[in-house]
């Protein structure tokens, strides 16, 4: 067969699947944290995945450059919802620049790239939980599901006026 089979090495499809849908991800998708409209948000952005029609709205309440509160609303798959939920937990209390470097680090993780050294050194300790989402790297079509909330959060940080898109 000239085309590579996607079943590479000793990694079985069942392993890949349980790697993608880890218990923590399923748990966050069933009971997402911080999924609410934030009345007093200081920044807000909408993200959109034209591939599947998923939408995420991120709300940020900034105090100087610290994320005092963060929440989201929208419809998405398990990966998207869990990613948004876990991201909000991770970013609460972080500074603007910590949030930005977490974004870089997360992007690298889910794309299967090693984080750049300088980015990694800036990253803030409790990143481990977000590692749970690294399983998407074996499902290239699903990477955008995981990154949509993060792109939207970045748009909110930048206070871009246009809705962001994964395309």
């Amino acid at each position, binding site marked *: 067969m000239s085309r590579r*089979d*996607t079943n590479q090495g000793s990694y079985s499809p069942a392993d*890949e699947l349980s790697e993608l*849908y880890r218990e923590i991800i399923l748990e966050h998708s069933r009971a997402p944290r911080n999924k609410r409209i934030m009345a007093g948000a200081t920044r807000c952005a909408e993200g959109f995945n034209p591939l599947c*029609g*998923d*939408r995420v709205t991120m709300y940020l309440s900034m105090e100087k450059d610290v994320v005092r509160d963060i929440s989201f609303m929208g419809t998405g798959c398990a990966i*998207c919802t869990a990613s948004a939920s876990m991201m909000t937990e991770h970013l609460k209390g972080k500074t603007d620049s910590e949030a930005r470097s977490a974004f870089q680090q997360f992007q690298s993780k889910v794309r299967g790239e090693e984080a750049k050294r300088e980015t990694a050194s800036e990253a803030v300790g409790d990143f481990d939980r977000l590692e749970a989402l690294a399983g998407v790297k074996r499902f290239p079509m699903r990477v955008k599901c995981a990154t949509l909330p993060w792109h939207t959060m970045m748009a909110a940080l930048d206070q871009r006026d246009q809705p962001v898109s994964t395309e």
Partner: protein
Amino acid sequence: MSITLPATSVDGLISGVSRDYDIERIRADFPILKRTIRGKTLVYLDTAATAQRPLRVIEAVDAFSRGYNANIHRAVHHLSVEATEAFEGARNILRGFINADSIREIIFTRGATESLNIAAQCYAASVLEPGDVILLSNLEHHSNIVPWQMVCEKTGATIKVIPIDDRGEILLDEYEKLLTDRVKIVAVQHVSNSLGTIHPLKKIVGMAHRAGAVVVVDGAQGPPHLKVDVQDLGCDFYAISGHKMYGPTGAGVLYGKRELLEKMPPWLGGGDMIKSVTFEKTIYADPPAKFEAGTPNIAGVIGLGVAAKYLEEAGIERIAAHERDLLDYATPRLETIDGLRIFGKAAHKSGVVSFTLKDIHPHDIGTVLDTEGIAVRTGHHCTQPLMERLGVAATARASFGMYTTRQEIDRLVEGLHKVIEVFG
């Protein structure tokens, strides 16, 4: 799962199908069906997105590149003659395939999207006036919505939407009410890509013509699943996608009535669409050349001709009966799955099952099925207004083709049980 369902049939077709339709022989024509995905035999249930190609089409495309690659309509040398004959031969095959009156009515395009854009930009944009109305059905694919919005911006015409019922059928009495004398264009699909609804096209065309409107048909899902006779249907334009009828990508057809094509301005300007060019004035060629500027996808068009022949030999009616059998087999089996909801219950339906499963997102359904080697489409299927009408963000869609088997539907059902296992 241990349910036993009676072998359903439509007018006793099933026994006829099993006698006439040699599914194993047909499957042997499609090399890709032997592939494994993640260690499992491929179950390809995404034919509505793109159909797989029979060996004959693959070989025809290959033979062109190996044996007689040359530009068409140009040189006097032998290879160019062979290439031109094969290309124009495909035009004649397609003419017969949809029973057009003349080969001049068969315009080769990049696909159904380009075909619809030509109808919109070249025909509609030159006849519409402010206040004129274009009617679209609520089921249309984005490629039969966006070109009309672009035309409206240009001309000041407006779009009105023909509503549908909950089964996914066009409401003909509502359509009748919308057909005022301001309606100049009715743009509708033949078969719904999202729900499978086969629309009563001849009736829709007749009603439009009585109201003085021209009918543009998005036929992307038509010819692979049912016999298309454009003269019998009476439509003014009919857009065909090559790769959805087992041909190559990048090749399609716009059928247009000759008198309309002759009045229309050209599409792209360039070589092959002219009679003569001076810097002062260019005289355009007659249709179809007027709409075929530039070197076309020659190999693709030749492959499309071979695909049409292949479909004719297999028998469109037999394929339709086979797909109907699959639909009747799949529908009750899928409905026994707890929490599965099928969208689209039209009386006349092609081999498409669009569904949701509990509150599991279709993308998650698609990924789990993928690990079982099963390819389905998930998302809005380029029909966001329809999804809004149905009240869902997305669905999963299994679509069947001439090579699909009942065993593959069994695999789908098993796969969906796996989905439930993962998501509970």
